[in-house]
């Protein structure tokens, strides 16, 4: 359990964050310059807060009032940097055991063999970092941090420097780490697909503050947080179960409290619990079911609220069998439909708008 309340001024920029991160993965999400990296640097002891207090599992790492400021080497937190930062003069094996060798034996909870197996880096042990691909480097960097048996793992956009294929290769490892090694993870990211895949708890960062904290589903369904989640990213996240695949048409059926959702085929097995993100702009609204349409998903829903958004857009919040959905329509559309709270409507969602990157097995 990480508890922190920090303040630090960096020139004109002020970081002021209060936060609690428990088991699982806590994602710090925000645009560049929102203070995400500053926060984990302060937790790691690489930057010094002006005021505040940081504790991990009750142990005080920093307390401005009491004059406590443990150096990074005494905090026992793992840190995975964006650019890996492997030691170029050491082999992969020596990189991995670097932190482990400096951890007192009774506190070594993570075994080298386990990490090598989980990360699939057994064939790389005798190489030097210069001979590794970007994805391999990052896996070794994760292993190195884990093997120091840290109280918490801090990850600063570990996938930002990788292309989509490498990213897809590493995401599953990270998703499994927190449970497998029982280590809470504080994960900094500005990529929504990573957050969707990894986060148990989401912290939205804005101008040096933690603007909102909650579950991914709750925060992404709130129109008032749209400036922070991103205009294009706006949309609800729902929980669903894979009901089955139809390979001949390349589609997958998902069931959720609001009915059945047809989406582009995904790789997850039937029965898997998934998180599905549906962009608000991909949901259309009809007051009566259209006939002879290509749209496969027509879900009965009730209008909860209708609010004028920006740029002549209207945000319509829907309740679909207990699951909140968020639709964005034009002001012109609203003028013709005249939606009011309480109305029963159909939410129309094209199956092809929901593809692989919108569907993730939650942690």
């Amino acid at each position: 359990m990480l508890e922190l309340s920090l303040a630090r001024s960096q020139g004109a920029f002020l970081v002021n964050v209060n936060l609690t991160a428990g088991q699982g993965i806590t994602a710090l999400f925000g645009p560049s310059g929102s203070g995400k990296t500053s926060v984990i640097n302060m937790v790691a002891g690489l930057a010094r807060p002006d005021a505040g207090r940081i504790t991990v599992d009750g142990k005080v790492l920093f307390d401005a009032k009491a004059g406590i400021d443990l150096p990074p080497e005494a905090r026992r937190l793992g840190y995975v940097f964006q650019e890996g930062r492997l030691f170029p003069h050491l082999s992969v094996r020596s990189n991995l055991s670097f932190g482990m060798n400096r951890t007192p034996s009774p506190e070594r909870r993570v075994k080298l063999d386990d990490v090598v197996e989980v990360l699939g880096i057994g064939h790389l042990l005798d190489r030097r970092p210069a001979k590794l691909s970007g994805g391999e480097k990052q896996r070794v960097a994760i292993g190195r941090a884990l093997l120091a048996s840290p109280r918490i793992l801090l990850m600063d956009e570990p996938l930002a420097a990788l292309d989509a294929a490498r990213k897809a290769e590493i995401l599953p490892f990270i998703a499994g780490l927190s449970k497998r090694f029982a280590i809470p993870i504080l994960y900094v990211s500005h990529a929504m697909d990573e957050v969707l895949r990894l986060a148990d708890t989401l912290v939205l960062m804005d101008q040096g503050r933690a603007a909102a904290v909650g579950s991914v589903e709750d925060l992404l369904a709130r129109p008032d947080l749209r400036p922070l989640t991103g205009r294009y990213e706006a949309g609800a996240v729902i929980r669903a179960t894979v009901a089955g695949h139809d390979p001949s048409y390349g589609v997958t059926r998902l069931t959720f409290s609001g009915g059945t959702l047809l989406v582009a085929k995904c790789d997850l097995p039937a029965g898997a619990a998934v998180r599905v993100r549906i962009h608000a702009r991909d949901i259309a609204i009809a007051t009566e079911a259209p006939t002879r349409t290509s749209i496969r998903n027509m879900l009965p829903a009730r209008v909860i609220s209708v609010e004028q958004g920006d740029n002549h857009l209207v945000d319509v919040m829907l309740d679909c069998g207990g699951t909140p959905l968020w639709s964005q329509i034009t002001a012109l559309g609203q003028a013709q439909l005249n939606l009011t709270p309480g109305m029963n409507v159909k939410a129309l969602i094209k199956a092809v708008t929901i593809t692989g990157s919108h569907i993730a097995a939650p942690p």
Partner: protein
Amino acid sequence: MFTLTPLEIEALYLSLLVSGWAVAGSLPLGILCAWVLARLNFPGKALFDGIIHLPLVLPPVVVGYFLLVMLGRRGPVGGWLHDWFGITIAFTWKGAAIASAVIAFPLMVRAIRLSLEGVDRGLEQAARTLGCSPLRTFFTVTLPLVAPGVLTGAILGFARSLSEFGATITFVSNIPGETRTLPIALYALTQVPGGDEAALRLCIISVVVAFAALLASEFLSRRVQARLQG
């Protein structure tokens, strides 16, 4: 066949002894000074930097004279060393090593400092988060990474020491078997009639030694680079 005369062997041996000790003795201090210049900011840093670089721009004779005044048997430091420890520096090969070290010091520090400034500080941070104290980080991460720079600095210092003349002759004079290194023996030979041939031979030996040092440096730094790049 090119066989060395006893005089040449003696001068060559002294040159290597003096230069070797000059480098070995001043390297730790050189690394420390380079680190201070590369990493710390403090009032008076420009002055500190200037003092370290002074031997590079002063006439070596001035440095030699200064050493003589300070470290001579009647000098404030030399007298103390003599009275308390019975150590005499002036007019011995140890004095020649000190003179060479002082002259070569700025070259060595410059090379190491450049290398230190090129080290990714992020790697040091990574080592800290993995449980290394600053001192341990220096020895396990920083020093191996600047090894090529340290090597270059050491070879530069060694080469500069081999060619040291002005400060050496002023401080420790020309004593056969004690302070008569290659350049000093060469100078002495040019001052006696009929010494031309012997002087030329010493010239050739000097060139060979200097060239060997350069080749060794190139070879070693390639090996170190290869190690770093896997």
